[in-house]
């Protein structure tokens, strides 16, 4: 329906369309269930808008290729699922170290290992944070419906450019495969952060790793006026390797702090009925749909229940969670893993005894009824 901004799409397709909206010009990937449809759609759309699509020989090379392309000034993305995400970890660390903006979408399926390729899970949350070796920080966003998927995808590109860092989009099989309505925002309705290009003129010394006053590091495209070096080793502000302890120390802290010190501007979330919530559900991704379903259902019968939906998973918004949970008697984390976010919530709240986990790890979307039953038990009313 080209005349209307309304679309009825698969989540993977929404991801593709949102990436294009955000300015995607380069996609490299390798097929894997349940994420392949993103690549399929982009293989069609990208050449039609002058972008580039390439199917690489594996996920390792896909991740490498988007880093290379990003250095030429193109907004670049890859999409995969657990096994492929594991394979990308070394190169993700490279993007962290070399401060290359790019976006990696991981559509979660059942793990570990090949696990349950066509079933839902939220088991890669901790891996998104810690999958690559060495200290680092990373931004990870998620969403629970197609409209938010669209927004978060655009945000991911924006944050990647703002902080010169890889950003992970952590979606899941239910979101990725289901179709629902999404309204494509008008041009400029969601602001787009473009590549910050250095204003240093040709012939003048350009420092690729010397932050401006506002903390941002302007870039210069490969093939442009400035020749510099990019490396995965610790490096100085020109990008040349060094192991001088003070330079190493500074870079390490820069890489971590550029993100960890900006939690409040990176955090995205939604809240429902927090004020009077004695029972507070904390959820994200497709699990948050069931959580919201049961919250609305229970409020109808008079339960003082509210919900905090996290859209930024990393850096974990500890302070936000602490504030929002202040008055809750029961803090129930609804997720489809063994408690990966629950663990963070527990570390964030003042009274960790009131934190409960309502989860499901059998490849099935947690249902509103599941949560209802958890609540009965938590509230001491049996099943």
């Amino acid at each position, binding site marked *: 329906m080209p005349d209307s901004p309304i679309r009825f799409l698969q989540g993977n397709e929404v991801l593709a369309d949102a990436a294009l909206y955000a300015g995607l010009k380069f996609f490299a990937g390798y097929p894997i269930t349940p994420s392949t449809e993103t690549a399929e759609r982009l293989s069609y759309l990208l*050449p039609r808008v002058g972008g*580039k699509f390439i199917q*690489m020989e594996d996920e390792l090379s896909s991740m490498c*290729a988007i880093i290379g*392309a990003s*250095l030429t000034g*193109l907004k670049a993305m890859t999409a995969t699922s657990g096994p492929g995400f594991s394979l990308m970890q070394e190169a993700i660390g490279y993007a962290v170290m070399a401060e290359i903006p790019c976006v990696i979408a991981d559509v979660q399926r059942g793990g570990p290992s090949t696990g349950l390729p066509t079933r839902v899970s939220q088991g890669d949350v901790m891996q998104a944070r810690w999958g690559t070796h060495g200290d680092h920080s990373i931004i990870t966003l998620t969403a629970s419906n197609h409209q938010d998927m669209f927004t978060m995808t655009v945000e991911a590109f924006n944050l990647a450019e703002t902080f010169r860092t890889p950003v992970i989009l952590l979606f899941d099989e239910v979101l990725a495969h289901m179709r629902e309505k999404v309204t494509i925002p008008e041009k400029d309705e969601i602001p787009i952060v473009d590549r910050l290009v250095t204003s240093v003129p040709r012939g003048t010394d350009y420092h690729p790793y010397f932050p401006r006053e506002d903390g941002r590091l302007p870039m210069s495209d*490969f093939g442009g006026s400035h020749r510099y070096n990019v490396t995965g080793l610790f490096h100085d502000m020109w990008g040349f390797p060094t192991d001088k302890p003070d330079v190493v120390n500074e870079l390490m802290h820069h890489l971590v702090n550029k993100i960890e010190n900006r939690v409040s501007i990176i955090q995205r979330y939604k809240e429902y009925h927090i004020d009077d919530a004695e029972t507070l559900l904390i959820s994200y991704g497709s699990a948050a749909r069931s959580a919201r379903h049961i919250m609305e259902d229970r409020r109808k019968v008079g339960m003082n229940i509210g919900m905090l939906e996290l859209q930024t998973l990393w850096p974990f918004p500890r302070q936000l969670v602490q504030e929002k949970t202040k008055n809750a008697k029961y803090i129930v984390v609804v997720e489809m893993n063994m408690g990966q976010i629950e663990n963070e919530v527990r570390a964030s709240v003042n009274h960790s005894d009131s934190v409960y986990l309502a989860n499901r790890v059998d490849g099935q979307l947690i249902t509103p009824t599941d949560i209802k039953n958890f609540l009965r038990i938590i509230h001491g009313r049996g099943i």
Partner: protein
Amino acid sequence: MSSMTQYLRTRFMPHIWCPGCGHGIVLSGLLRAIDALGLEKNDIVIVSGIGCSSRLQGYVDFHTMHTLHGRALAFATGVKFGRPELKIIVPMGDGDALAIGGNHFIHAARRNIDLTAIVMNNNIYGMTGGQFSPMTDTGKKATTAPDGTIDRPFDTVSIATAAGATFIARTTTYHVHQMIQILKKAIVHRGFSVVEILSQCPTYYGRKNNAGSAVDMMNWFKDNTYKLGTKTAEEAGEMKALGIFIEKDEPEYCDRYKTIIQKVGSP
């Protein structure tokens, strides 16, 4: 000091390579080829992996990228496909190119994407201290083959041919004039070019295998190679042929994609 210093980041010189390391000769030859071609510094990107050979990238005043062990061609593919007008040169070690990086090597060749892969083949992992590589001849010693390797070596030329590279050549650090000529052609060639350069690692390969000094090793290159086409297989025996094995015109990957964009793109 040399006129090539215009291309060097001299503040990092002298370079990290051991005395007599062949990689320095490759660097020198590469710069001379680039100089002879009169290319613009800003049009050249060097993408390397990890290894002694991959340190080449740090010394040259082009756009330079030092990536991950074995993955240089994958990064380079992104750079090239992203900006096809640039000349991308990828110096690699034999381990980098054909051990951990073997898959990217054959796939870059298959695509015929316009990259110039220089395999600086010293038959050993230099950077990590002398373990055998997929180019170490059977029976040779290395720190992980104290009783001699049982592995058989690859032949770079055969692999590149089978995988579809459209320019394939071999030379050595002894044959510097040939090296420069070959590198010039390889860089100009539109498509995936592979230049294998036999290079000496006196420090590890040489020592472990009693191959003598850098000079001895270069003399060995002289004595154990011949010009492609001048000997029959029988005459050649264990000797290696040098020269250009393949040079053919086939559609390049980015060019092919351009035709797709032209067909379907709405400009």
